[in-house]
């Protein structure tokens, strides 16, 4: 079964949705930028978690994926943002001439790692206790990335307004930039929440 769906950076929503599908007996077999493909499985046989990987270099991601696969998990990569890209080349509608094609370093279009594990009633989280600092760093990266994309898109929007580009492109870029700014704010709030939790648990953490 193929489902066309896009969650952008709303990782929690995406994770919940995948888990709901698994509860109904659908197991993820393939992802593309706009599509998820499922096979039938026993209801609630699997569960999913999503991890944000952008900013980590390719060899680290591969090493991590290998580690998880050795643990008996299955992993999928997923894009966080929609771009018109083939491989590492990306079309930037707001640029002029040849500059419309940009290349991206690192694990572009594979910012998310979807991790599937068999539901065995045991521990569910990939990251447990003692890891508060890593979680905070992780949220900070998410926040920065979204903010960065928002900023780039906002600049693209302004450029196409004052550069005499088409109105439709300007509106599209504007809407997208707001979208990323909203996501950045969501992660700011999550970061604050995580920091509060870290402070409260500080005493227990030691040993």
């Amino acid at each position, binding site marked *: 079964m193929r489902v066309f769906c896009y969650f952008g950076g709303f990782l929690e929503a995406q994770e919940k949705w995948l888990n709901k599908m698994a509860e109904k007996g659908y197991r993820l077999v393939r992802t593309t930028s706009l599509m998820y493909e499922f096979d039938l499985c026993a209801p609630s046989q699997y569960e999913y978690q999503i*991890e944000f990987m952008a900013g980590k270099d390719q060899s680290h991601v591969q090493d*991590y994926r*290998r*580690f*998880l696969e*050795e*643990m*008996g*998990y299955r992993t999928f990569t997923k894009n966080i943002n929609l771009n018109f890209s083939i491989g590492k080349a990306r079309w930037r509608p707001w640029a002029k001439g040849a500059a419309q094609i940009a290349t991206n370093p690192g694990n572009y279009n594979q910012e998310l790692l979807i*991790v599937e594990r068999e539901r065995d009633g*045991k*521990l569910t*989280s*990939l*990251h*447990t*206790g*003692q*890891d508060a*600092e*890593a979680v905070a760093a992780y949220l900070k990266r998410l926040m920065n990335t979204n903010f960065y994309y928002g900023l780039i898109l906002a600049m693209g929007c302004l450029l196409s307004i004052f550069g005499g580009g088409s109105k439709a492109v300007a509106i599209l870029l504007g809407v997208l930039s707001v979208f990323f700014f909203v996501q950045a704010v969501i992660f700011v709030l999550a970061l604050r929440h995580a920091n509060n939790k870290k402070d409260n648990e500080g005493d227990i953490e*030691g*040993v």
Partner: protein
Amino acid sequence: MRDNVKGGALTETTFFVMLALYRPNHGYGIMQFIEEKTNGRLALGAGTLYGAINNLASKGWIAPCGEEPGSAKKLYAITETGKMVAERELERLIELCGIAREIIEGSGGGK
């Protein structure tokens, strides 16, 4: 997860990973070792364990030692430096236990 190298105190996770590697072991084996020895009290997330292994490897306390025949799973083992650190940690814990026993059991009117 931070280990206080000068004071010698290791986190519980760190110490357990090192203990699991007195015999060459892979990630899944380390996780099973820890769950078994603590009767499931300490259950690590795979991401956390991955971080702990990489952290210890970069300190030189553990090192990769080939692949498990058949499964091709990456194996790790504790190094000589790692063993020294583990021995020092054991001494520190024995001392701590001794003091704790003296005070807690001594003051409980148990003597």
